[in-house]
């Protein structure tokens, strides 16, 4: 039989978040299938992925974690995708004790970027602080430089939840640094009626709005903005407010709306050509409706899958082509590097930013492109815009240190660790 690496996937194909989940796991599975069937696995190791429905409930993700953490069919698990910030939080300590890395790209716990305190947590790719910072950087570029930020009013309309508030410390810091006025306006879940919020916007007249909602609250937000005459092209949506399902239902109101895109939309990237040929046209895709091929959420799945595959590849180089366990998985992720060359090889140029993860930096990227909606599709506006890591790093370290103190953790000193 094949040598296999077991990859459990907590998913949410039903329930309130199904519309993103369905595409997301189609992308992820299509890529894994591509690796298995076209590339013959990773160095010959096949991926054995299995889904577990959680409806995005952290409790059920915990349950799945318990179920799979010992591995399956002789393969341990090298990492655990939580696919949800609350789930990451719920598992943080368990996973550290079990020595299983938690992978939560473009989410997770921001200060776990500091791998000295959080060896087993990876808020890969694009942490919440980077999201805030990239948004501000983009606004700066639009207004003609950072100096021009001074005196601007930037309002954040956010989903009133931990997710929605996760950027607040970063925005506050940047507001101080650049001198813009920081307005925060909460929208209570589910956010299907936002007149009071946008009437407030109407009164306060901010120059830009950073939209950090999710699900219906994005659609309703964009529509209500239009109703109150706030221009869509001065709204910047966050990662999770930037998929097709966020704008299509908003109709015309969404034209000109832009969003941060660590996972750009579109089916013209190299990898899509390969998938089209080997998976879609071969009738093996997990997509029910091919019109969603290249949708933002589908691409989320592709990118996340690619990150996992590249990390495993890194690990196999060091430990040999055999299933990795959690500790080896951590090593693999902590030494994951995907440079331009590698991007070209795997067909992800433009879709995935160059990544370099180290024990000190579990994020590894921290950039996004900006895409805007033209009424039919997302159009990419920029190349990768990087977050202001120098500004953010002290805040992150400070919070990580506080966590370490509270939990009695002595931070590792990875420099002296033998690899």
């Amino acid at each position, binding site marked *: 039989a094949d040598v296999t690496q077991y990859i459990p996937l907590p998913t949410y194909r039903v329930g309130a978040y199904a519309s993103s989940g369905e595409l997301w796991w189609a992308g992820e599975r299509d890529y894994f299938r591509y690796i298995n069937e076209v590339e013959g696995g990773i160095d010959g190791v096949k991926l054995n992925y299995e889904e577990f429905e959680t409806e995005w409930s952290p409790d059920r993700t915990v349950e799945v974690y318990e179920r799979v953490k010992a591995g399956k069919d002789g393969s341990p698990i090298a990492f655990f995708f939580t696919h949800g910030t609350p789930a990451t939080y719920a598992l943080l300590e368990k996973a550290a004790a079990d020595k299983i890395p938690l992978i939560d790209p473009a989410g997770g*716990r921001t200060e776990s970027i500091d791998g000295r305190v959080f060896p087993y947590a990876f808020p890969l790719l694009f942490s919440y602080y980077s999201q805030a910072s990239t948004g501000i950087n983009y606004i700066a570029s639009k207004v003609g430089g950072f100096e021009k930020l001074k005196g601007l009013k930037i309002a954040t309309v956010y989903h009133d939840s931990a997710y929605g508030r996760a950027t607040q410390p970063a925005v506050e810091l940047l507001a101080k640094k650049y001198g813009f006025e920081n307005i925060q306006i909460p929208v209570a879940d589910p956010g299907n009626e936002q007149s009071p919020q946008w009437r407030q916007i109407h009164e306060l007249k901010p120059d830009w709005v950073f939209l950090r909602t999710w699900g219906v609250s994005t659609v309703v937000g964009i529509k209500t903005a239009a109703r109150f005459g706030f221009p869509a092209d001065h709204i910047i949506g966050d990662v999770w407010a930037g998929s097709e399902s966020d704008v299509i239902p908003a109709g015309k109101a969404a034209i000109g709306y832009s969003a941060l895109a660590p996972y750009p939309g579109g089916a013209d990237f190299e990898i899509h050509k390969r998938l089209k040929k080997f998976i879609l046209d071969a009738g093996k895709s997990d997509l029910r409706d091919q019109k969603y091929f290249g949708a933002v959420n589908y691409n989320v799945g592709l990118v996340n899958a690619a990150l996992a595959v590249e990390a495993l590849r890194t690990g196999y180089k060091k430990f040999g082509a055999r299933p990795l366990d959690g500790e080896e998985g951590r090593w693999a992720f902590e030494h994951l590097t995907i440079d331009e060359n590698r991007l070209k090889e795997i067909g992800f140029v433009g879709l995935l930013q160059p990544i370099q993860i180290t024990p000190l930096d579990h994020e590894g990227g921290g950039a996004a492109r900006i895409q805007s909606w033209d009424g039919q599709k997302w159009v990419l506006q920029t190349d990768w815009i990087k977050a202001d890591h120098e500004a953010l790093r002290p805040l992150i370290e400070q919070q990580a240190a506080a966590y370490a103190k509270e939990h009695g953790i002595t931070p590792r000193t990875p420099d002296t660790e033998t690899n």
Partner: protein
Amino acid sequence: MSEIELRLTGGIGEGVSTRKLTGIAVAALVVSLPFLATEYWINAIIVPFLILSLAGVGLNLLTGYAGQLSLGAGAFMMVGAYATFAFQLRLPELPLPFALIASGIVAGAVGFAFGFPSTRIKGFYLIVSTLAAQFFFEWLFLKFPWFYNGDPSATISLPAGLWAFGIDLNSPHGRYYLTLASVALLTWLSYNLVRSQTGRNWMAIRDMDTAAAVIGVPILRAKLQAFAVSSFILGIAGALWAFGYLGSASVQSFGLTRSYQILFIIIIGGMGTIRGAYLGAAFVSLLPLALDWLFQQLLGGHADAGLLQNIQKVIFGILILWFLIKEPEGLARLLRRQSGNFNTRRFPRLKIRRQT
């Protein structure tokens, strides 16, 4: 004059000794369980099952016994969890068991307060009070950083983990015994209560409150007691759910779906029975797993996963309906019937005879 004679058919009181034996066997099994079950079973199934059962017992006191419909079970669990967090964080000297009790008391006080409207509002209208609690606490514990100690994700987890009197309870076994002890103790207390005068007062109010008032049942006090005791238990269940099972929690762990789940447990298990809470909890914790397993076995990974999930959901719905239709008084009653001794037989009935 006339003499009334009773004729009883069908045995009552048979099998007492077998019941005792079964009891002992079950107790032995429960205590030694950690050494029989895998870690996965303990962590992911048994511990949450026990906690859900406890929550079911708590809600059953209020809804099943006292007849006050509540959709706020999640809220009271939430209060318990956040209170435990606050005690452990700010009063680290207070040992965990006492912190749990204190949190239960806090939750009980909150339940007491939100129970006040029940003195005027009845039936389905009463859900407004418990729903208000539900949404209010979701908002409160998210809004004010004090409650989650300023953690950026607004989640809570015990700073020092689970320790009681110097014993480390963080291992699966530790958590199992902590949960088991709390659940068993509180179940015992509840059992005593429902068989006491207070329990009778609750049931009287449930069955007919005007009549209850007239025969001297202190309605106001009994209702508020029901709210307080129920919330006390729910509060402890919430704390266990957060720290004994999940490890960390946020308001989402105690959202409206949790409230529905607990209500569902007592209805499917049997309103107004302590046993029912356990059966209902077993049903809701095991059924999704069973369906999951079944589908994996039947179809491997070959069918459209999204479709399968939806089918599962439909099946779950159908099973709920099937149970409700089949046995209105819940699993507790169904099982009793299956276990014989309850088949077609005449109820004790009267026959009147006249002496000559």
